[in-house]
């Protein structure tokens, strides 16, 4: 096939046409756009499409290969599920922001060069921020601005790296980079990518912004930005040891915060860091099995994390809060939401028969295969924290536990939201039962069988005994209505402290300096002026006057030969001229 319609195009054009439609036609159109994109991805053949030339650089809009396709598949499926979940929203702008966001993410996936990638990369940041702002609360507006500033910073790192890379190699082609060849340009690009993947310590934008987004917007946000970053890391930086280490650190860091957080969406947001950590670690380990695992885990993760955000969003939508300390006993009022949330929770925890089991274990097994037992142990520790926080803590304290103090008169959310959750839950189950469907999409051939005895035993021991510890220590885990600090403190409170430091130390110093200048500086200036004046009168004026008198004398001489007194004026003029000149200078 020679021509192919880029799936992003459907989203961009669809977003622009959306405001022209009304009523049911609009709702149908919102669902039709992702379906058209799914058809476009299904029809794609491997190859290079949409080559263009700009300022002497060759750009590629459509690089279709196995690595970009596995992400594209899950992106368009997720776009459909997200659009279905958000179908009840009335504002066109919200749907348009979602479409521009998904379109930009797809544009970034298929980009074959850094320039094209950069344009869509920025497009993602600028469209997704509206999904935060549309919540229309003061906190969301502020969080949105911080989100945007942080991503602009990341974009600048990427841009600086890209320019230096062009200077170094004379090309902007986006291909795999060998760790041995990497220097400043590559590491700057890596830092820009790592920021979007929420790699420590560039992660704080994520738990800051996502929990402040709209109920529907968070479902989109949790899927695309971090996973696009995982894709570009897998494309460009597989085998970078620093990613293996930082990714593993992320997995444990994320679950530690998920254990102590109170707001369900903050638990889930921190947990994204943990899950993306697995993928980053997989990319860092860099073997075919590990990169396969990263791609498979991204695929599975997008679905179950979206499902969890849908569940948490439904709770927020129906009860007005997502804070565990104010929830409890919801199973009576929102039974379907509970079932779908639990499917998401067992999927993310890696229960056999659900998607996490067949994807996460690929990365853990890859670490095991490479003899990296410490990495493997840390990844399994994060697995414990996953089941503990997202699986047990949230499920227990939101849906069971003590009845909330204020009676919750909630019920299950609107039909479109239930359908979206149901379909997503079904996919999580299908991937778990038929992993070959997912493995067939992966970039490298798969020789991995998740359902073997050793792995089943390992997974079941970890899950069951985590359950036992939860049962014994459940009181310790009671959610507290608190806010936990993170590194965003440095730019949220640190800047305020700097302002105080400015007011208390720098400003008084400035005043003191002013005083010093007024007393000492001005006195010196006056003295200097006096001296200049004396010099002016005695030395300069003498010279000038002397010259003038000479001219006058000369004039008197001339006068005798002339009638009129013009020469006197010339002398006077000269005198005035020098006097003015002196004053001005």
């Amino acid at each position, binding site marked *: 096939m020679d021509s192919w319609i880029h799936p992003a195009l459907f989203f961009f054009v669809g977003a622009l046409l959306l405001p022209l439609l009304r009523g049911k036609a609009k709702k149908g159109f919102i669902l039709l756009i992702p379906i058209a994109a799914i058809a476009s991805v299904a029809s794609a053949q491997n190859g290079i499409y949409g080559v263009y030339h700009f300022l002497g650089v060759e750009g590629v809009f459509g690089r279709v290969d196995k690595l970009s396709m596995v992400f594209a598949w899950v992106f368009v499926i997720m776009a459909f599920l997200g659009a279905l979940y958000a179908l009840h929203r009335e504002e066109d702008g919200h749907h348009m922001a979602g479409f521009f966001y998904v379109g930009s993410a797809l544009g970034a996936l298929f980009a074959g060069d850094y320039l094209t990638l950069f344009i869509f990369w920025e497009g993602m940041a600028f469209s997704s921020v509206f999904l935060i702002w549309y919540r229309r609360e003061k906190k969301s507006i502020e969080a949105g601005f911080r989100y945007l500033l942080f991503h602009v910073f990341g974009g600048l790192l990427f841009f600086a790296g890209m320019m230096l890379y062009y200077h170094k190699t004379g090309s902007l082609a986006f291909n795999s980079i060998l760790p041995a060849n990497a220097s400043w340009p590559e590491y700057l690009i890596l830092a820009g990518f790592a920021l979007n993947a929420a790699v420590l310590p560039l992660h704080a934008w994520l738990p800051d912004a996502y929990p402040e987004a709209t109920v529907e917007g968070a479902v989109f946000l949790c899927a695309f930005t971090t996973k696009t970053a995982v894709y570009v890391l897998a494309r460009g930086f597989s085998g970078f040891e620093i990613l293996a280490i930082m990714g593993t650190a992320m997995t444990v860091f994320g679950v530690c915060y998920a254990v102590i957080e109170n707001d369900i969406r903050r638990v889930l947001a921190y947990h994204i860091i943990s899950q993306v950590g697995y993928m980053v670690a997989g990319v860092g380990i860099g073997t075919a099995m590990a990169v396969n695992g990263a791609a498979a885990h991204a695929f599975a993760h997008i679905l179950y994390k979206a499902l969890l955000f849908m569940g948490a969003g439904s709770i927020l939508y129906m009860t007005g809060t997502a804070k565990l300390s104010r929830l409890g006993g919801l199973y009576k009022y929102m039974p379907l939401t509970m079932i779908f949330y639990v499917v998401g929770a067992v999927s993310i925890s890696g229960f056999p028969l659900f998607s996490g089991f067949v994807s996460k274990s690929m990365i853990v097994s890859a670490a095991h295969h490479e003899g990296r037992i410490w990495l493997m142990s840390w990844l399994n520790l994060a697995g414990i924290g996953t089941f*503990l926080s997202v699986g047990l803590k949230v499920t227990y304290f939101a849906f069971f536990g003590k009845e909330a103090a204020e009676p919750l008169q909630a019920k299950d959310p609107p039909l479109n939201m239930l359908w979206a959750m149901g379909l997503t839950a079904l996919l999580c189950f299908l991937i778990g039962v038929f992993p070959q469907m997912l493995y067939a999409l992966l970039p490298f051939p798969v020789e991995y069988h998740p359902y073997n005895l050793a792995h089943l*035993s390992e997974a079941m021991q970890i899950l069951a005994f985590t359950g036992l510890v939860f049962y014994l220590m459940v009181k310790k*885990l009671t959610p507290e209505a608190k806010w*936990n600090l993170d590194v965003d403190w440095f730019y949220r409170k640190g800047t305020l402290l700097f302002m105080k430091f400015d007011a208390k130390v720098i400003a008084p110093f400035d005043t003191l300096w002013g005083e010093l200048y007024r007393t000492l500086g001005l006195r010196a200036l006056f003295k200097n002026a006096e001296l200049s004046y004396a010099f002016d009168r005695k030395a300069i004026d003498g010279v000038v006057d002397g010259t003038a008198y000479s001219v006058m004398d000369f004039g008197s001489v001339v006068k005798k030969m002339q009638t009129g007194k013009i020469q006197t004026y010339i002398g006077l003029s000269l005198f005035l001229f020098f006097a003015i000149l002196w004053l001005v200078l």
Partner: protein
Amino acid sequence: MNVLKIIEYLRAKAASLKIAFFVFLGALVLLDILLPREDAHYFVDKIYAFWTLFALAGCFLLIKISKGIAHLFLSKDEDYYG
């Protein structure tokens, strides 16, 4: 609603569920001990019920350390940032 009835029924049988859970845990450990270990290369594969011990210790420490650090200096009032 059926789901509600099932949950209420299970809640009423909490004591039996507890016994079933403990039996299940015991069975898991037993199974791991009986598992063939011909291609075990590393200590995580060789030690009997390694992941049981790992989960017990890991989960306990994860709760203790996370909550400990939170109480030590991470936890602030909900409106800390205003």
